[in-house]
């Protein structure tokens, strides 16, 4: 306990004497974390999206114009049934669609209540017997006068998955690079305080201090920088993402047919990731910065 207190006191003193560089490291790590946060937000939301629409995976959804009457809809259904590769055709009213959407969104479902009038169209769901026929079904359906639009999730999911895979690989490479940069920045910052205290370190070594004892305050200094960065970036992400969800969330939700991940939940996870990353970067940076001073 006395050791913990000693290390914390020393670390705060060191940061206090070296404000400029400490702030620069916090800035660099925060920037890195924000980029990570962005990737994280994108991939979490994409995952939720693919999960939600998976149930409609092999279904071509045909949205009808508001002006299309039920009789016209019945006619369209009959026409569709004739197409090769169609195994089943069902009608879904806008009210049913809203109910289903509310159910799928689960906890976020209440958000839909604020929509007022139901913006969802009536639709016809076409189960296709095999994927290759989906394309021709899709084409045939959209030609119809009463049809506003069609979606076919298989295609979307494939595309999205491909894109997110690419993004994730790219993100991983950029992240690795940024983590290395952060470690270097932290280690340079701490090198300054190590240098300022080199006489003390030298004396400590003569008196028989273990390397871990000597490292203690510097390790804590690095970890404090990491923790501070994690808190700053979590805060920024919370505010910015919260704003996005509040402003554009609903629009995107109805557009994509899937809810954005709630701010609290997302940031709760992100803060844990940021803290782990920040502490790791801080600790690595300080150990690296001391290597030269401690061998021998």
């Amino acid at each position: 306990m006395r050791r913990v207190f000693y290390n914390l006191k020393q670390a705060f003193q060191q940061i206090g004497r070296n404000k400029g560089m400490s702030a620069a490291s916090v800035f660099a790590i925060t920037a890195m974390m924000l980029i990570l946060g962005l990737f994280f937000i994108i991939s979490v939301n994409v995952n939720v999206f693919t999960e939600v629409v998976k149930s409609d995976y092999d279904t071509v959804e045909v949205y009808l114009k508001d002006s299309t009457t039920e009789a016209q809809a019945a006619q369209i259904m009959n026409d569709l049934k004739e197409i090769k590769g169609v195994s089943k055709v069902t009608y879904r009213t806008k009210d049913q669609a809203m109910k289903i959407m509310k159910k799928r969104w689960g906890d976020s479902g209440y958000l839909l209540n604020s929509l007022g009038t139901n913006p969802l169209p009536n639709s016809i769901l076409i189960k296709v017997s095999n994927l290759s026929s989906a394309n021709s079904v899709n084409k045939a359906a959209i030609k119809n006068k009463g049809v506003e639009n069609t979606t076919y999730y298989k295609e979307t999911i494939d595309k999205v998955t491909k894109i997110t895979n690419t993004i994730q690989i790219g993100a991983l490479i950029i992240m690795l690079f940024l983590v290395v940069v952060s470690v270097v920045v932290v280690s340079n910052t701490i090198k300054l305080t190590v240098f300022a205290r080199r006489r003390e370190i030298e004396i400590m070594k003569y008196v028989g201090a273990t390397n871990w004892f000597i490292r203690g305050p510097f390790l804590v200094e690095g970890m404090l920088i990491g923790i501070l960065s994690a808190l700053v970036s979590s805060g920024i992400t919370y505010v910015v993402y919260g704003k996005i969800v509040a402003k554009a969330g609903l629009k995107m939700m109805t557009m994509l047919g899937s809810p954005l991940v709630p701010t609290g939940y997302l940031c709760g996870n992100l803060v844990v990731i940021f803290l782990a990353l920040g502490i790791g970067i801080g600790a690595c940076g300080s150990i690296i910065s001391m290597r030269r001073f401690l061998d021998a």
Partner: protein
Amino acid sequence: MITFKHVTKAYDGNIGLKDVTLSIDDGEFVFLVGPSGAGKSTFIKLILKEIDADEGEIQVGDFRVDQLSNREIPQMRRKIGMVFQDFRLLPKKTVFENVAFAMEILHKSPKAIKRRVPEVLKLVGIEDKSKRYPQELSAGEQQRVAIARAIVNNPRVVIADEPTGNLDPKTADDIMQLLDAINMAGTTVVMVTHAKDIVDKWNKRVVAINEGSIVRDSFGSYGYHENGRPDKKGGRDNA
């Protein structure tokens, strides 16, 4: 206490020590003398394992220094008190804190520190300066603080690298009295020095090194002129 067996240390090309064999017993007081570049600091650095020997065995107390792993070095150094020519005190710490520092490093309790530090400061004769900062003290007083720090953890041996090098003769003599008292209390003392007058006056064991080799190991006077030439009326040779 300290044993060197055929120890050799070369710095890429330069000779540090060459096949040195030497034994210093528990409780001895040894002057280590020799011209500049002779290898005295090399000898001390080898004891502390600041550098590694190329060949030979080094024993310090219970430790086989040449076989010590990096993790065991601190344990070994805790049995050695170091005193330097330039005192090496921390300017931002008081006299008390400078000495307490050596105990904190060994995780001693605040209670033990509060009891032991004044005791040691009294021993070296500066108990009244405990709240002062090093730069407010005379050179002799600063060296006393350094000695207090060296002995506060009861080391078995004190190694002093030219402890009187920055002091006037009178103060140097006071410091010698102190080191002698520490030695009388049972602690082995190894002192590197260039001060012929001190060596001649104190009549202790003198180990003379030149160009990396022990050229003389005897009791009594310095035995060498400042320029390194043998002194005709040098000490009794017991090698």
